[in-house]
């Protein structure tokens, strides 16, 4: 069977009324779960896995994939409306999405989020279906040294997230990395900075920090700033304008492709993709100074990279049985529960399932868009309520979410602590995004650095034999020093022109 025959059977499977129904239910449930702070796609899929046990494997996996998709968008909604990312990957969306909402532009922010997820989702799905094996073998060339170099590249984006003071941004990123070293290091088996406290063995989780720094700190900050006016907008301001779309077109494609590629790499993940996708968009934008203050491209870039990375994560998952992200790891567990062994033979042994699943991604994306675009004004009207009524509920949901992440009070304590830390950070102008970036990348950086060092028997010059890693390092250097070099170059040219 060739590609198109597979496509036909795949859509045949995905469009059967039963699968369509469960795809819809999955997307709907996923959206609801995504709306709850702290409960992201991985938790959602794991929690709702038991309810699919009576379905056929294909239908069950289609529904679980629907939950995965839905949870992504649900998280986007809360990031934009109340600066409460439900999921680590939507942190970046909040950076521009939330300021947009406060400026009364929640509608366009939500709409561009849905549209850019959809568009880049479709592009990346086509890549996934047509070229999955090619990308999979490419991903295998990304060993520890390459991922390490990619993370260094990721760190260069701190500059873009630092706001007014670059030094403060760097300090916050360093603090983030330091935080990741707390706890039991699964590699060496060493407990670090735990002082005998069992809760510290588990380390400081990423999600409680995010909920604290964003949701709780933002509430405290708004309360301090006094009367917060409800945001009333006209319906016509809720819809996407042609101008908005024109500004975002190239961003969606660029960040989407980048996101897809990062998603393909095992372990890199959608969060790194959204940070890098956002930074890429900022570098090439004509409105650089609007970023962080409510640039619509920021939302588009983050969402496009995020949803493309979600699809990219399916490349190693389906072709090699190696999960590309936390959520695909849970999905792989589900495969085994249904008696399907994920691995390189999946495409040959279970063509109906694999193609049906991939085609259902198309349908899931379409359902998500159709479900959410009409609801955008409804969601946006949430902000019409008085803030005094909204914020106690935000706190309530945030703290339940913080408990539910690991089923223990420790998460609640962390959220509380980082809530107050975040409040003072806002008050004294310390940027939060670099801290988050440090926490996202810190663990991975250390892991890959130690792996590289072990591979070389202690010798880090092993990097020199890895051309991909060297290219990534060069790119990082270019991003950091490029602007200075360009300035020097133009100075020299002007000087020589004057001489001539």
């Amino acid at each position, binding site marked *: 069977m060739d590609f198109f025959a597979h496509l036909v059977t795949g859509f045949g499977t995905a469009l059967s009324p039963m699968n369509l129904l469960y795809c819809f239910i999955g997307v709907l449930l996923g959206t*609801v*779960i995504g709306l*709850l702070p702290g*409960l992201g796609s991985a938790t959602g899929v794991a*929690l*709702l896995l038991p309810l699919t046990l009576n379905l056929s494997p294909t239908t069950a996996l289609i529904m679980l994939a629907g939950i995965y998709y839905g949870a992504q968008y649900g998280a986007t909604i809360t990031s934009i409306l109340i600066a409460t990312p439900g999921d680590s990957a939507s942190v970046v969306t909040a950076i521009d999405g939330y300021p947009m909402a406060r400026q009364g532009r929640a509608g366009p922010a939500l709409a561009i989020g849905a549209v850019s997820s959809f568009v880049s989702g479709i592009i990346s799905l086509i890549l996934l279906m047509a070229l999955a094996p090619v990308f999979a073998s490419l991903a295998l060339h990304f060993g520890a040294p390459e991922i390490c170099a990619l993370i260094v590249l990721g760190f260069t984006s701190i500059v873009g997230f630092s706001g007014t*003071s670059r*030094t*403060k941004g*760097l*300090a916050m990123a*360093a*603090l983030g*990395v*330091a935080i990741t*070293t707390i706890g039991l*290091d699964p590699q*060496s088996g*060493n407990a*670090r*900075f735990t002082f005998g406290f069992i809760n510290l063995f588990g380390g400081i989780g990423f999600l409680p920090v995010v909920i604290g720094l964003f949701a*709780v700190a933002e*509430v*405290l900050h708004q*309360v*301090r*700033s*006094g009367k917060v006016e409800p945001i009333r907008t006209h319906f016509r301001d809720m819809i996407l304008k042609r101008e908005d779309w024109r500004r975002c077109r190239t961003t969606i494609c660029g960040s989407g492709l980048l996101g897809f590629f990062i998603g393909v790499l095992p372990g890199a993940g959608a969060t790194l993709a959204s940070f890098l996708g956002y930074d890429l968009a900022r570098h090439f934008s004509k409105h650089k100074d609007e970023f962080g203050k409510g640039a619509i491209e920021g939302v588009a870039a983050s969402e496009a990279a995020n949803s493309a990375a979600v699809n990219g994560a399916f490349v190693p998952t389906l072709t090699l049985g190696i999960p590309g992200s936390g959520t695909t790891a849970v999905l792989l567990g589900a495969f085994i529960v249904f008696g399907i062994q994920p691995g390189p033979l999946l495409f040959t042994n279970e063509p109906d399932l694999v193609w049906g699943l991939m085609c259902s991604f198309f349908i899931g994306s379409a359902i998500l868009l159709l479900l959410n675009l009409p609801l955008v004004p409804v969601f946006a009207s949430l902000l019409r309520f008085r803030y*005094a*009524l909204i*914020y*106690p*509920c935000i*706190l*309530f*949901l945030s*703290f*339940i979410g913080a*408990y*539910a992440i690991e*089923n223990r*009070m420790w998460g*609640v*304590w962390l959220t*509380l602590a980082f*809530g107050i830390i975040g*409040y003072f950070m806002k*008050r*004294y102008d*310390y940027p939060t995004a670099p801290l988050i970036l440090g926490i996202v990348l*810190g663990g991975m*950086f*250390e892991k890959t*650095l*130690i792996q590289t*060092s*072990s591979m070389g*028997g*202690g*010798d880090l010059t092993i990097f020199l034999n890895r051309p991909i890693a060297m290219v990534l390092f060069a790119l990082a250097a270019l991003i950091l020093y490029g602007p200075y070099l360009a300035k020097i170059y133009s100075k020299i040219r002007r000087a020589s022109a004057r001489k001539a």
Partner: protein
Amino acid sequence: MKPRGDYVGALILVAIGAAFSTLSVDYGILGEEARISPGFVPFIVGLLLVVFGAMIGWETWRSRVHATINPTEDDTESESNTDKGARYSTTKSVALIFGLLLIATILAPILGFLLTFSILVFAILAGVEQERLWFSLIISLSIGLLAWLIFYQFMGIRLPLGISAPLIGG
């Protein structure tokens, strides 16, 4: 006000960094054959924190010196007295909310999670925002009920019940 805050921030960062660096020596920084050991990353990051913290302190000091030479770049908060009064009361609200959150977190395992946090919502609405009592009660009850349905019933998340166990039927 602001520069003082920046000095405190810088000092905290330097202290955290120094702590990380000092403690990480115990975990080994470079092992046999100069392999990177578990202490390496926290040691380096700790040093970086000390450096960046010091830089923030230095930048604050410099901009302040600058400001006294150029009085146009006034750094002090130029708020009128009424503004200051409002600021004071909102800061008090922040402290109050934080205190309530702290109490709720302590009480949650004892009284039960949902009950405690429903009471918290009521306390904020009625106490801090001075909404009408019956209105606050309705909102806190309905969000509690909603959370019970979604988290407890539907998602099957075992929130601590404490003494409210018989209430929920766990």
